[in-house]
């Protein structure tokens, strides 16, 4: 059976071009980039090229890119650095719909005595920016950092991070964004928005798992999260994951080249999938603002059926996606994102997230469109909540 992979917000396949560029650095070109000899130094040159490529994707200077092990490490490093730089400030502002990398870190810091404001979202997933601006006006001196995701992993809804970042910068407040889902899907310009720190992850943009990066604006005296050697100019100790860094560089170059295709062809495929599923399946609804959304993401709820059951039947047809129900993650409530948006239980439990990449085709969308209606009908036929 062919696999139709529409779970690219979870992870992506490594591009063949990326893998090809990485291969020599697993074997013959194994030198340590920190070594004095040219055998190692040549690897250092290749890492510098990767740094330039990542920088170009988000309009940063190469020296502002710090390689890390993943998006979660980037997020942790950014928040902990902000706290260390502002030891007297005890207030952190974030949103109620962040990825666990930020959400659970902030909950941990709350238990350690920090004051955290988890800013709410409305039914469409829009952030209550007024609340943020009010707090900034009144208590700017106590805010250590504002951290907001650029785009939501479950719904694809995009936050106005540039606007908030500028207002934060005006008040001298550090602003961090978890842009793991946004990078490579929409254009990002850290300079235009005056962003202080930005997290990104390799495996969401066709680089391997286990590599990420943190953009740190020039002039910030960034204290390292991992302490040790002098790598990454003292901002992240540990011998470089050379092959993966080189892979992330190549993937960034490709992602920049594919931004236009994301905005046109992939957005078209997503819209086609969305329109057809809504038309063919009664009592279905899209979660989140349909306009202000990543071009590759569709979060769609089917009333009166449950996500895990849907996913397992989809699996029988070779279709990979995610659910907004939590049965799959071990917790029992629907996802915190859908709950924060006050999506009714009826559709939240039956929410499926499709997330596309540039590898998806129209034929695949047509296949999903044919496969889904009988799956939902089959489960509704045995659901006590389905009113025919």
């Amino acid at each position, binding site marked *: 059976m062919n696999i139709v992979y529409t779970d690219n917000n979870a992870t992506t396949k490594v591009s063949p071009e990326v893998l090809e560029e990485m291969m020599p650095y697993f074997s013959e070109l194994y030198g340590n980039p920190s070594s004095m000899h040219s055998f190692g130094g040549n690897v250092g040159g290749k890492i510098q090229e990767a740094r330039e490529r990542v920088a170009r994707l988000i309009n940063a200077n190469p020296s502002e890119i710090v390689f890390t092990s993943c998006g979660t490490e980037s997020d942790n490093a950014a928040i902990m650095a902000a706290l260390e730089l502002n030891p007297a400030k005890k207030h952190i502002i974030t949103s109620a719909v962040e990825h666990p990398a930020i959400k659970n870190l902030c909950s941990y810091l709350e238990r350690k005595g920090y004051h955290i404001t988890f800013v709410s979202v409305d039914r469409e997933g829009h952030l209550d920016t007024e609340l943020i601006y009010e707090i900034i006006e009144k208590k700017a001196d106590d805010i250590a950092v504002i951290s907001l995701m650029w785009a939501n992993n479950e719904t694809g809804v995009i936050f106005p991070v540039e606007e908030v970042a500028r207002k934060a910068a005006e008040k001298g407040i550090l602003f961090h964004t978890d842009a793991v889902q946004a990078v490579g899907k929409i254009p990002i310009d850290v300079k235009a928005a005056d962003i202080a720190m930005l997290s990104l992850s390799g495996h969401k943009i066709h680089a391997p798992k286990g590599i990420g990066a943190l953009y740190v604006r020039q002039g910030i005296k960034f204290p390292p999260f991992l302490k040790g050697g002098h790598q990454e100019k003292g901002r992240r100790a540990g011998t470089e994951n050379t092959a993966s860094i080189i892979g992330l560089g190549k993937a960034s170059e490709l992602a920049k080249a594919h931004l236009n295709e994301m905005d046109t062809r992939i957005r078209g495929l997503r819209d086609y999938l969305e329109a057809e599923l809504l038309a063919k399946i009664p009592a279905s609804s899209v979660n989140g603002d349909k306009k202000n959304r990543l071009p590759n993401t569709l979060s769609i709820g089917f009333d009166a059926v*449950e996500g895990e*059951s849907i996913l*397992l039947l989809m699996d029988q047809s070779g279709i990979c996606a995610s659910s907004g129900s939590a*049965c799959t993650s*071990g*917790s029992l*409530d629907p996802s915190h994102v859908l709950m924060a948006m006050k999506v009714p*239980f009826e559709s939240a439990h039956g929410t499926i997230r499709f997330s596309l990449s540039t590898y998806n085709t129209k034929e695949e969308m047509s296949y999903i469109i044919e496969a889904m209606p009988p799956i939902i009908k089959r489960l509704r036929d*045995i659901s*006590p909540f389905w009113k025919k």
Partner: protein
Amino acid sequence: MWEYNDKVKDHFLNPRNAGEMKDADAVGETGSLSCGDALKLFLKINKSGRIVDASFMTFGCASAVASSSALTEIVKGMTLDDAEKLTNDDIADYLGGLPKEKMHCSVMGQDALRKAIRSYKGIEILAKPGNTICECFGVTDLEIIETVKQNNLKSAEDVTFYVKAGGGCGKCVEKIEEIVESILAQA
């Protein structure tokens, strides 16, 4: 992804006795939309008090559907007195075991069956006895105590897997821990 055995998969993909029974003699309902799973059990009972047919409608995950399917297969042919003694373990055993995190699906089967039989016998089902511990899933202290004793549970996490209590907002986890510890101390 949950690891289900082949029998659970089979009962999910090919559920036995699924669908509404229009002329049922007894109906038992448990769960709700907000809980994420619910079961409506239908029984056909003959004059001598034997279950001659059973069917179900279920909203929930694969193990909820499989547990419901298994339940209907088990109770067919049973006397009401025997059926009343059925436990969630019997359902899980019939399926060759459920992942620990999914044991609440089998508990749901036991609950719906008891409700169906009690309503058939005309036993009034009163409001849940005991004090509500878990507000998210409406679970009382007496239910938690019964489940802990019946299944030899050792932790608050176990309780969540079996009756969901503590699996929502998490505020009651400490109270559940206290209940479990007091039972363990008695044992």
